[in-house]
């Protein structure tokens, strides 16, 4: 009995082998199909070696972006809520960004609009920036304005001394406010 089982197993292995070979043969292309040549992806501009003197530099770095650090727990200000609470409010926030990117409010002038001032103060103290710049920063919230609802003064911001001079720093999004069109935000001095 065991002998027949062994014979059956051998025949099964043989059949599996035969089907495997047939499958491999079918994978080869037949005469009617022409396979297009494999084109490598279009090459990009190569960095080319220079001759003569050799200058060893640090690795290439992309410019740094100074902005609100969205990876931290910075709360967002809801503009629509401010407008619905007090559409005539004008709030001036004198702030300071330290070397770690933490935003502090030095002085908040709410001109009598205490409710909106309180909301803005509570939200803005949670803001964190990337640590590439430090110094004073001022926000002027002008809710009744039609063209410049928010003015930001960044003239007193300086680059963080730990960042090497040759690294470029660009300014990104410096506020975390929802539902405020970027057209209504200006950068300049607050008089």
């Amino acid at each position, binding site marked *: 009995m065991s002998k027949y089982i062994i*014979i059956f197993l051998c025949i099964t292995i043989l059949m599996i*082998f035969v089907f495997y070979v047939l499958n491999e043969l079918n994978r080869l292309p037949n005469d009617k199909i022409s396979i297009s040549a494999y084109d*490598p992806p279009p090459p990009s501009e190569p960095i080319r070696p220079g001759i003569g003197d050799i200058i060893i530099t640090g690795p290439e770095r992309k410019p740094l972006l100074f902005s609100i650090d969205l990876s931290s727990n910075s709360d967002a200000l809801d503009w629509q809520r401010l407008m619905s609470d007090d559409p005539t409010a004008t709030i001036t926030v004198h702030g300071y960004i330290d070397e770690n990117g933490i935003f502090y409010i030095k002085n908040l002038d709410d001109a009598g609009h205490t409710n909106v001032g309180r909301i803005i103060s509570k939200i803005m103290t949670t803001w964190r920036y990337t640590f590439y710049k430090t110094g004073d920063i001022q926000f002027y919230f002008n809710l009744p304005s039609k063209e410049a609802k928010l003015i930001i003064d960044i003239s007193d911001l300086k680059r963080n001394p730990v960042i090497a001079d040759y690294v470029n720093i660009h300014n990104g999004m410096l506020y975390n406010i929802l539902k405020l069109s970027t057209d209504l935000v200006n950068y300049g001095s607050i008089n």
Partner: protein
Amino acid sequence: MAFKKDYIKRGLSLPGMIDIIFLLLIFSLVTLSSSNPDVSQYKEGEQSVQIDLPIINSNLTEKRNNILTTLMFEIKFMDDNINNPRVVYYLLPSGDTTTYQIAKQKAIENAQCDTFPDNFLSLSDYAFESLSACQSIRKAIKDYKNAHFVEPNYNNSVEIRADRNLEFRIFNYVLDQCSAYGDTIPRVISRSLSY
């Protein structure tokens, strides 16, 4: 007295069958895994099927179906003997179907080759560049560039197929000559047999 006849019991020889099965299995595994179908021998059919192969983002490139696509310098030792002088063959593609073998045959028939002298390593830069082989390399690159590389293009390239034991000076010379045309020939493709 009754004599019993001994019947010789015949049956399937199991060890033999197992041997044959294993033999066939090993043979097929080894040969099918090592086979590389040569696509160039297949004729073009009336309808061609476009097969999109995966794109590999790499500085390495595999040999494409044996078709020559640009000027190639094949530099090797004469008769494949490392003690013999170095020979450079100039292989030029004509159309889209020139294979490496056809181009090499043409180069041999038309004597599109040159030999470097044995003392080429000890020559000064000026003397080395004055060699007929170097002048031919320079001319080949210039003629091919004038005919095919009209504008600077990152796709423009020249190929070198060199023996691994070939000295770097010849290789470097080809790089230098291509660099004379700046962005028109920004790269050279070096092919060598990998072991």
